[in-house]
């Protein structure tokens, strides 16, 4: 087939700006071939190059004694003691999921699992943070069903338990849903595999599924805004095969045991191109690929298609040549493709041959290192107007409004579609707060949470960014875990707009300050920009995924509230209603400033919870919905009523930070009060768990009625 001529239209269709194309001409000193244009487009798009965000991402704290490997590899690696490490990352699959929800979400899960096992870790936990449009928007229900089934369809077959996540609805996501998938794996700390190639003349081996035309141009699509031509983009969505991924994982981990692997990289966005260039660049080597040897699913594939295919369940590896027979045997055992498709070379070249024709011949280090980097103009988000008066309502009515909203109703409709227990190490299933997975065969366990409150970030990007980290810290703390590290998935609109860029910059600054103060460095992450449709952006959504360690079973706080327990609140309550759930759900107002985060108070209060875990039966963090929602959820989970002394709306629904709700018996409560006073930690008795009603001051409603509302709200809205 004749390659098309390089025209301005073709260049624009590859998402390359005129100045970026001029740069290509400067680098190679001639017009690129069609395949080369595709390669540049893949390497330089926002999804792969982080060209808008890199300047700011560099400011994030990424190191600490617990960090074995920070950002830059397929996933972050963190020490959990006893020679073991947890390997984790969160990544978005937003655009594909909107176009084809089942496959988009499924391959998002597949991609993140591959990132984890590529490092030599067996996946042990998954989470997903999902944001959808308004429940009455015509597309929402289909997206919810498709995405949830896709997440489940892939993870359940692969065999990884889903232990947490979020599901939210807001009209700002009507045209762009968000699917952020998290995975964590377990590895020996001294057996982590990296992507840097080493040695000249080493075979480059293709592993896994065959290459097809699916996903050609996917990474470029993921870096563009949507408009009404969206249906035409469907062919760029990949199709997932979790059964192949499961075999690829088993085969890869088995292969790693043989000592055959020099370096390994999964083929994710921009497939063969990105993986080959990254392995060569990190090792200071060139790479020569012979595309005729690539296992192909369809006849007559061109070099361009093979280089840009995003077919799933594939890996690229640099092999120790003396181990070839052993390595091949592992892949034959698992019925997977194993093909030598090239070699490492000494020169700085990325040489791609197909049918004895040179299809691409580019300087590899320059190709990788010269992606444009922008210092995009940005404006600080203006301070929010102060919140005007909020009318008083019956607080029980306020609670009813929250728990019947799909944003705050129980999410069992979602979680029951995910296998939460496969691998038989699940200590705490998803639904409320952090999930917990036991480290197989040890007394340790790991806690997982994912958090962000996009309303806060929109009102005040700095505080909103810090709050997402603080909430993750609290969710881990509330189950007795010590937070270890963080992965961030930054979902924003078009960064070429200074106000959107300002949101991104503000949120990164807030996240940076919080992870530094709370000692939970960023070890991996992903940026998804251009989440806009017809010029309207999503709520800024920097999802924070965090992992904590529970070093011994007795440190875990996993009890439930019982009749007779005292209800205590740790932390100060001023009654901050700005940007609160109550304001949004009851009054349809998103106004005022986000609550401010006092990082010193967060640290102090969190340390207090951990130090006094023996005195605490049940614990939850207070986040959106405030004390009222948290007390109801804790009561409902324990099957007991709750009576809070106050009926004050701001006290009940205010969203002040650094707070926890505790349930414990009277003696424990007395001891906690004494200890807290000594430590200078604010603590207040706010009521007790008793009876079969939820009572705020003098108003009450039967627990059973509220529980029925809470258990049915989600399905009523979108089931």
């Amino acid at each position, binding site marked *: 087939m004749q390659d098309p001529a390089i025209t301005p239209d073709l260049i624009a269709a590859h998402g390359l700006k005129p100045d970026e194309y001029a740069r290509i001409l400067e680098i190679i000193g001639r017009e690129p071939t069609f395949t080369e244009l595709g390669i540049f487009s893949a390497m330089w798009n926002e999804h792969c190059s982080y060209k808008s965000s890199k300047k700011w991402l560099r400011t994030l704290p990424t190191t600490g004694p617990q960090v074995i490997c920070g950002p830059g590899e397929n996933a972050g690696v963190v020490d959990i003691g006893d020679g073991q490490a947890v390997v984790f990352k969160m990544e978005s699959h937003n655009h594909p999921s909107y176009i084809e929800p089942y496959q988009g979400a499924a391959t998002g899960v597949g991609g993140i699992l591959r990132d984890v096992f590529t490092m030599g870790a067996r996946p042990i936990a998954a989470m997903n943070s999902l944001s959808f449009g308004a429940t009455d928007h015509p597309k929402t229900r289909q997206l919810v069903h498709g995405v949830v089934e896709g997440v489940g369809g892939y993870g359940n077959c692969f065999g990884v338990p889903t232990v947490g996540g979020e599901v939210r609805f807001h009209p700002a996501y009507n045209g762009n849903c968000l699917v952020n998938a998290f995975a964590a794996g377990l590895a020996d700390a001294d057996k982590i595999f990296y992507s840097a190639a080493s040695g000249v003349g080493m075979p480059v081996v293709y592993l896994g599924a065959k290459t097809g035309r699916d996903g050609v141009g996917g990474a470029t699509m993921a870096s563009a805004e949507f408009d009404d031509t969206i249906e035409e983009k469907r062919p760029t969505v990949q199709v997932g095969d979790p059964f192949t991924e*499961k*075999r690829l994982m*088993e085969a890869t981990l088995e292969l790693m045991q043989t000592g055959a692997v020099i370096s390994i990289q999964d083929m994710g966005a921009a497939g063969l191109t990105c993986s080959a260039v990254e392995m060569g660049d990190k090792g200071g080597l060139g790479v020569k690929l012979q595309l005729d040897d690539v296992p192909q699913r369809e006849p007559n594939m061109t070099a361009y298609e093979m280089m840009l295919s995003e077919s799933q369940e594939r890996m690229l590896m640099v092999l120790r040549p003396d181990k070839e027979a052993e390595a091949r045997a592992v892949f034959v055992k698992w019925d997977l493709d194993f093909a030598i498709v090239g070699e490492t070379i000494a020169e700085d070249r990325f040489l791609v041959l197909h049918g004895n024709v040179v299809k691409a011949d580019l300087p590899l280090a320059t190709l990788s290192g010269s992606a444009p980097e922008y210092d995009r103009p940005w404006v600080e988000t203006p301070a929010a107007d102060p919140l005007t008066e909020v009318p008083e309502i019956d607080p029980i009515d306020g609670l009813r409004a929250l728990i019947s909203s799909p944003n705050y109703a129980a999410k069992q409709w979602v979680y029951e579609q995910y*296998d939460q*227990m496969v691998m*038989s190490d699940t200590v705490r299933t998803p639904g409320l707060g952090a999930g917990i997975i036991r480290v197989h065969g040890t007394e340790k366990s790991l806690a997982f949470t994912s958090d962000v409150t996009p309303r806060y970030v929109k009102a005040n990007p700095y505080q909103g960014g810090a709050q997402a980290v603080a909430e993750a810290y609290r969710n881990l703390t509330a189950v007795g875990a010590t937070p270890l590290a963080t992965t961030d998935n930054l979902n924003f609109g078009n960064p070429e707009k200074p106000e959107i860029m300002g949101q991104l910059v503000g949120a990164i600054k807030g996240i940076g300050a919080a992870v530094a103060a709370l000692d939970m460095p960023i070890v991996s992450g992903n940026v998804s920009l251009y989440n806009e449709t017809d010029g309207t952006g999503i709520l800024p959504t920097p999802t924070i995924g965090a992992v904590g360690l529970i070093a011994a*079973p007795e440190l875990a706080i996993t009890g439930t509230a019982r009749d007779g327990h005292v209800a205590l609140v740790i932390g100060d309550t001023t009654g901050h209603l700005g940007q609160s759930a109550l304001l949004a759900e009851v009054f349809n107002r998103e106004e005022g400033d986000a609550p401010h985060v006092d990082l010193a108070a967060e640290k102090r209060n969190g340390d207090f919870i951990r130090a006094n875990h023996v005195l605490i039966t049940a614990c939850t963090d207070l986040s959106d919905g405030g004390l009222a929602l948290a007390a109801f959820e804790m009561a409902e989970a324990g099957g007991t009523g709750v009576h809070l002394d106050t009926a004050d709306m701001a006290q009940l629904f205010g969203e002040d930070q650094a707070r926890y709700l505790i349930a414990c018996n009277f003696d424990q409560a007395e001891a906690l009060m004494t200890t807290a006073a000594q430590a200078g930690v604010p603590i207040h008795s706010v009521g007790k768990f008793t009876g079969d009603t939820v009572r705020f001051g003098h108003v009450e409603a039967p627990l059973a009625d509220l529980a029925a509302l809470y258990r049915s709200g989600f399905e009523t809205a979108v089931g």
Partner: protein
Amino acid sequence: MKAAVIVFPGSNCDRDLAVAFERAGMDVTMVWHKDTALPEGMDIIGIPGGFSFGDYLRCGAIAANSPICRSVVGHAERGGYVLGICNGFQVLTETGLLPGALMRNANLKFICKSVGLKVETSDSAFTAGYNAGQVLSIPVAHHDGNYNADAELVARLTGEDRIAFTYMDNPNGSVADIAGVLSENRRVLGMMPHPERAVDERHGGTDGSAMFRALMDQLATA
């Protein structure tokens, strides 16, 4: 006591089942699906949960035709014990060792949660540790657990006391709430719920433990 756990490429509860057997005191050997013979002297064969061959078409159908399954059928025909859980149950119906078929859940969705499971008979090596009528809490996790049998078969299974477990609150549309069935000689059990996920008080409870302990005791005295 010696147990074998069959491993298909898409099995994902193989380790869980091995752990449950081991906790009950059995020696466990993992057996690859391409093997043509079982190791010598196996007292029980476990077919674990998962997605044996991806199960994109009929669950368990390809696994039932794998080399090792011919040996499993031979083992059962010689009076050996076989336990198939979830995907393992689907495989056992596909091999014909157990009657009936497992179809897509009535609500067409994957369902993972703990369910109330009623023990219908204590007359088997698998259920001897329970009392008939006892209600257990055991997790389910499947997309195709809707047990289907015609009225004649249900009557026969009931008449021969071969319904091992029923659901208290039927999650998947199974006929007569059937969650697990025994073979005619009561030595082959297939069940959709996962007793191997309920053998540790720190995760999933311990209502499944009695099945593995009873198997250990019964096989020791057999």
